[in-house]
């Protein structure tokens, strides 16, 4: 059974968004996504200052036999990239909700309302 945390926003592409303050959020992938991928060996992320656009690819997660594109759940400017994942990509498997990928400053906080809450996401992955 995949772990889903209350209080986070979720996308259909199995990413989570955690609001830190007002328009500042963290983005990562869900427990369900990491389990589907298998052992993560590499996370390809944008650079600080890059813009990500909702619905568009911004990077990729690689396991030994697969690579999945990361699709931006929201739009905004990348404020910080989690550098730890470069040397410890396995953290995505071990603690998916701690191993955030990007800190993003939202262009439009209202975009969050279009994401799923934990209940809706639970339904989504049980289908």
């Amino acid at each position, binding site marked *: 059974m995949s772990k889903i945390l209350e209080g986070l926003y979720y996308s259909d592409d199995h990413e989570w968004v955690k609001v830190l303050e007002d328009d500042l959020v963290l983005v990562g992938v869900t427990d369900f996504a990491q389990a589907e991928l298998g052992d993560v*060996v*590499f996370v*390809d992320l944008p650079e600080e200052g890059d813009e990500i656009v909702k619905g568009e690819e911004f990077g990729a997660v*690689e*396991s*030994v*036999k*697969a*690579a999945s*594109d990361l699709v931006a759940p929201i739009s905004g400017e990348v404020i910080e990239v989690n550098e730890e994942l470069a040397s410890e990509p396995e953290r995505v498997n071990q603690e998916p909700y701690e191993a955030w990928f990007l800190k993003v400053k939202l262009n439009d906080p209202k975009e969050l309302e279009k994401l799923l809450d934990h209940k809706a996401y639970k339904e989504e992955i049980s289908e």
Partner: protein
Amino acid sequence: MFKYFPHTKADIEKMLKSLNISSIDELFNELPESVIYNSDYDIPSFMSEAELRSYFDQLNNQNKELTLFSGLGAYDHYQPAIIDAITSRQEFMTSYTPYQPEISQGTLQYIFEYQSMIQTLTGMDVSNASMYDGSTSTAEACFMAASISRKRSKLLISTTLNPNTIKVIETYLKFKGLEWDYVDSKNGVTDLKDMKSKLDKDIAGVVVQNPNFFGHIENYDGFSETLKENKSLFIMNADISTLGVLKTPFEQGADIACGECQSLGMPVAYGGPFLGYLATNKSYVRKMPGRICGYTHDLEGKRAFVLTLQAREQHIRRSKANSNICSNQSLMALFVTIYLSTMGKHGLKKVNELSYQGSHYLYDRLLKTGKFKDPFNQPFLKEFVLETTISHDLIQEALLENNIFGGYSLQSFGDEYENLVNFAVTEKRTKAEIDRLVEILEGLS
């Protein structure tokens, strides 16, 4: 019956019976009748082994084995006898790509050793498992640069590259939708000033060749700094054999090293199979095309090798892969690995020393005839070009009469080279052969 088909009548009948059909044709019943080809192909009848031997002996005799004084990408270096002995082992020759590491450690290990040798010769961090040839590996290096730079779409190509390599790069770039421009040469080497004048924020990378098309050893002082400042990659096509003594691409600040490996143990073989190498910095490894072999262990802790970082490749990434390549020139990488194992660093140095000596002796002797002159006066290693007033056709004819191939006219590569002829001297050329070459050329006017 035929020797490659073990199907006896009894076996066929047994198989048909198990399938509940009466003829093999029934297996093709679902095929539309309009596409079935019912007649014999209009191709020759089969030959027995004896007939094949005599037919190919004839063809073999229609090819003239010449004493080679030509290079331009294919060099007549010494091939240790053990290369053929080892590469013809069926375990290496007939196996597939090493997808099942448990029964492919032979292939995987020599690929790892090959990568190690390319690594140390180029000085770069990491080599892939090899590419088709030097020209396509250079074209792939250009794609890599464009991909690393993300949004840049233009390459600068030095005009001192072998024109065939330039043509291949152009074909690749043209169809991919990338642009290019040329860096002029000055005195037979890439002109730094011209390169600087053409650099802008759209240049993903600059490609040079060393030693270049003319055989000249180029001086890249200032190149790498300039390119770093412009955030463009420095792509160096280098003759791998010469890297036994010449400054490495890494030492010259290259970001990607690539080129031809034919000179490491492969016959000239009318142009192939050869092998292209590609090496780069570790930070770019995920943008690198082709296979990569990595070290690991099995579940008992035994040393093992596997193909790795496959998530970059076409069979997983499909349309998002950086390259469509799905093989390497694996067996040719074995040629390279055996060659370099046999030669070691001393042998490779000696090959370069002997080639240097022979080519400089020939160079001096040709200049002394008064019929040749060097319009450039640049340093070279085993290959050089000269201007001559003797007709190029006459040179070729006279040499062919003496079973020599040399003094190749560069005019066939373009009118801009119209007066130039090429000579290459490897460690295989004897003093007697060189003296004979000079004697023949001296007699022409």
